[in-house]
């Protein structure tokens, strides 16, 4: 087992007409909850997609659990897309069964516990769920996997405060940090702050800062939001 779960070495990602990541290198430790913060278009989603193997770097290399990132590592990475990726014609229960069939590490028992925790109705069709409950169902599907790395792209975006709170709580309750690591992109920085270990600040396709959240409070005597503003102003 390698010490770092994710390693970026001089990674550049170019989309037609846009430089999404510019020569980025960093490593992520295991067993932590890590946030990617930064303005829209700073490269957060690109980093998550590169790790998930959904896009390839234009230059440089990305390794996950010591292996080159790509479709082959799909079994080791649970990816929550910022897009609505649920089938509207399935019920909640059918969606869970469908995902259990897709992923060998899916834990049905855990899914049932989270279902209960989230007060989701198993017989309801996805198309009839509120946006908040679709957000809850998406996090349920991700947290029910025993994958060593969970990638969450904007799991809190556009959801009301109660739903955001239930999603953060479910993460704390159902993650196993002895075996799992979370990397999430978010704009809801102050809300998620108490749940974090590490934070990475991104701007213009580059890493502007990477620090332990407790250290930010201890050394800089400021909140994550202040630190973020400071790093991005550099």
């Amino acid at each position: 087992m390698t010490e770092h779960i994710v390693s970026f070495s001089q990674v550049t990602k170019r989309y037609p007409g846009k430089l999404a990541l510019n020569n980025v290198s960093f490593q992520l430790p295991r067993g932590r909850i890590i946030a990617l913060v930064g303005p829209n278009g700073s490269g957060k989603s690109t980093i998550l997609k590169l790790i998930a193997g959904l896009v390839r770097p234009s230059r440089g290399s990305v390794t996950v659990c010591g292996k080159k990132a790509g479709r082959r590592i799909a079994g080791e990475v649970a990816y929550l897309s910022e897009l609505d990726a649920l089938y509207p014609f399935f019920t909640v229960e059918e969606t869970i069964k469908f995902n259990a069939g897709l992923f060998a590490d899916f834990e049905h028992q855990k899914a049932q516990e989270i279902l209960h925790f989230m007060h989701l109705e198993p017989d309801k069709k996805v198309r009839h769920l509120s946006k908040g409950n679709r957000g809850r169902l998406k996090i349920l599907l991700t947290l029910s996997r025993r994958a060593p790395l969970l990638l969450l792209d904007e799991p809190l975006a556009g959801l009301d405060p109660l739903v955001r709170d239930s999603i953060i709580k479910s993460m704390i309750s159902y993650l196993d940090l002895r075996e799992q690591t979370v990397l999430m992109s978010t704009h809801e920085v102050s809300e998620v702050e108490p749940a974090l270990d590490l934070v990475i600040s991104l701007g213009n396709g580059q890493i502007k800062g990477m620090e332990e959240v407790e250290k930010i409070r201890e050394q800089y005597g400021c909140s994550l939001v202040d630190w973020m503003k400071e790093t991005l102003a550099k």
Partner: protein
Amino acid sequence: MMSRTFNNTQPIYLQMIRRICRQVVRGELKAGDKLPSVREMAVQNGVNPNTVQRVYTELERLAIAETRRGLGSFITEDEERLKQLREDLKNEQIDTFIKDMSETGFSAEEIVEGVRQKLLITKAGRV
């Protein structure tokens, strides 16, 4: 349960240690009482489980709590240590208060007299 809020200028683990110490001094947590598991504590407070682990490790280092393998963390049964903790917290609060008052320009006599008056009024008010 509602998550409790934390201030932004101090590490969360220190704020949690403080809260637990105050609970001990107030008698809400007694010698030998079991502390919630790391996960329970994390969920109750809405904080990272690694942070709670650090809280328990620090409390153990301070001899305020002890971890029993497979059973969890408990408040120490060493009454002397708890008495000491009570004294320490008291002195810490008084020191902060005196420092503040001195810096604002009050003499020792004024401070003592002011506190005495205040306490008398509070006492009378309660009766």
